[in-house]
């Protein structure tokens, strides 16, 4: 076996240019796969982080008659927010909690207008659950003031200190308009926050909407991986209420990510095709070129299985070395993207194109991609070399020797 492996290695080294071409194609495919997987994972992680940090927290409690199809309906409000908050505070695994009110409105400055989601927040409690405060670039949220994204301010041609009219229908069904002053500007990594959300004080929001409660209470737990474990405890503590973990709240979002994942499957298919075509070509050429040697080896007493194995080893070696070098180079490039990241602004623009990520997104390690790239490259390479190797099985020694003698 060792001897056959030696012959395979020497054969590979003999046809240097051809081997290098196949090897390079395979390496390139693996590099692309490793980087794309890392970037997709990084994108996913950033998306989930933004989702938790700006929208959901780890859990959301909403009214029992919460209507998923009309999430901003005032019938969805939790009336007795205080008692829910007190019960939450008594649960050991619950960290920070905060109430929020959401309603749809039109924001305008008499010249430009834009549909927005108005979110009433408790500036003190909100920081225990959400990261909004860390992304205020100027000013703060004050009573009778609003906090908006810089890009929304740009769209409406407004800035700090300007007044903005917010028009909406309150809980009594009356159209109401209020002029509020921009007291802070935000720039988060979530384009939906930057482009279409207006934050106001929750007390102000309750007055404007004429409701006593809140749309939801969001909270953090001690370990966000344990949401499945905590959910039954919460359901027992809050019977009849709508309790959703960040995982459940992100189902639509997960579907979007699944679509992205499919693109990496195409890359894997691309690698397999390269491996199959390149290696079939390389080994087939090798078989035809080495007919005399194959005949000689058979004349010396090597049986067809052993000769076949030489060519299978060739495929195995090309697959193994190609994927290992692809993994090494891919890892080094990915390392750069993990520390520096990629600026998605050019690709997604300021609006995020429906994704909740923008600006620089850092790559991530996906170790399963390494295992997948290695396994699939080697398997595809061996399968690709099996066809030409099988041709050897059908050759008689004289058939090989006759072509040159």
């Amino acid at each position: 076996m060792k001897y056959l492996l030696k012959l395979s290695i020497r054969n590979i080294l003999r046809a240097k240019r051809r081997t290098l071409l196949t090897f390079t194609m395979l390496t390139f495919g693996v590099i692309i796969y490793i980087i794309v997987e890392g970037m997709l994972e990084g994108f996913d992680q950033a998306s989930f982080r933004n989702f938790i940090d700006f929208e959901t927290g780890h859990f959301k409690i909403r009214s029992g008659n919460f209507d998923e199809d009309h999430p901003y309906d005032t019938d969805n409000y939790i009336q007795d927010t205080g008692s829910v908050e007190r019960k939450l505070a008594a649960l050991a695994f619950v960290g920070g909690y905060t109430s929020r009110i959401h309603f749809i409105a039109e924001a305008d400055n008499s010249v430009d207008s834009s549909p927005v989601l108005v979110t009433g927040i408790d500036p003190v409690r909100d920081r225990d659950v959400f990261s909004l405060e860390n992304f205020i670039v100027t000013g703060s949220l004050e009573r009778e003031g609003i906090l908006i994204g810089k890009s929304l301010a740009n769209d409406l041609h407004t800035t700090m200190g300007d007044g903005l009219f917010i028009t909406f229908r309150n809980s009594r069904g009356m159209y109401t308009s209020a002029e509020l002053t921009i007291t802070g500007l935000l720039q988060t990594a979530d384009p939906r926050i930057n482009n279409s959300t207006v934050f106001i004080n929750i007390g102000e929001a309750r007055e404007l909407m004429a409701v006593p409660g809140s749309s939801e209470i969001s909270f953090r737990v001690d370990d966000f991986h344990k949401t499945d474990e905590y959910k039954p405890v919460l359901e027992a503590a809050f019977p009849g209420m709508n309790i959703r973990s960040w995982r459940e709240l992100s189902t639509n979002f997960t579907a979007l990510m699944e679509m992205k994942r499919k693109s990496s499957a195409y890359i894997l298919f691309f690698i397999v095709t390269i491996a199959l075509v390149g290696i079939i070509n390389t080994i087939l050429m090798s078989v035809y070129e080495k007919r005399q040697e194959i005949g000689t080896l058979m004349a010396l007493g090597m049986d067809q299985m052993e000769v076949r194995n030489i060519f299978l080893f060739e495929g195995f070696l090309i697959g193994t070395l190609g994927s290992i070098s692809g993994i090494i180079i891919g890892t080094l490039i990915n390392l750069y993207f993990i520390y520096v990241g990629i600026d998605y602004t050019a690709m997604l623009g300021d609006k995020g194109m429906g994704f909740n990520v923008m600006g620089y997104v850092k790559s991530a390690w996906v170790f399963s991609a390494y295992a997948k790239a290695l396994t699939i490259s080697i398997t595809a390479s061996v399968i690709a070399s099996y066809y030409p190797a099988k041709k050897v099985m059908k050759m008689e020694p004289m058939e090989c020797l006759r072509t040159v003698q």
Partner: protein
Amino acid sequence: MFLTVQNLNKTYHAGKMDFQALYDINLTVGKGEFTAIVGPSGSGKTTLLNCIGCIDNADSGIIRLEGVNIRGESSKELARLRRENFGFIFQTYNLIPVLNVYENIELPLKLLRKYGDGEIREMIMSILDEVGLQGLESRMPAELSGGQQQRVSIARALIKKPKLILADEPTANLDTATGEAIVDLMKSLNKKEKITFIFSTHDRLIMKHARRLIEIRDGKIHGKGRT
């Protein structure tokens, strides 16, 4: 008798054309003989050697090596027969270009899986000495002259001490002096190692070195005799 060939026939098929290369060949070779099969190009010398050496299949007939019929075995069994019983010397030397002199000679022993590395080394050094290639063991075939390559080929055939060495036109690609030296080498090894040699040639100068001649023409044996 060491080798007996009876009523051996071989036809090649190329598309719709059939070409009979051997017609009812009958011959015997004794153990330790140094026999030349002679005849013009295309007479069937190579085909006969290849059929005897189990690298080509005859259509009919019997080939007995030490009384055992070796024709018509499975390809795996034929590989074993070639590995254990035959040594081949080719007109074009057929050295494996990616292996150096040492590794080319080592190849038949590795396939036999009978010897350890130390034993193999001793055997190779001794045979290199016999064929006059001392010091060239790490050279690649492309770095050797035709005569040197044929010596490596002889050493490779001889290293496992086969029962029969089949040499197909071993001097055809060499100049006369080198060719004669190669035949002299084969003859001395035949005498020393008592290995049976059958070689084909159409070179009259080389024929005179053979102890026994079998003449073949148009696939038929025309004469047998001693030089």
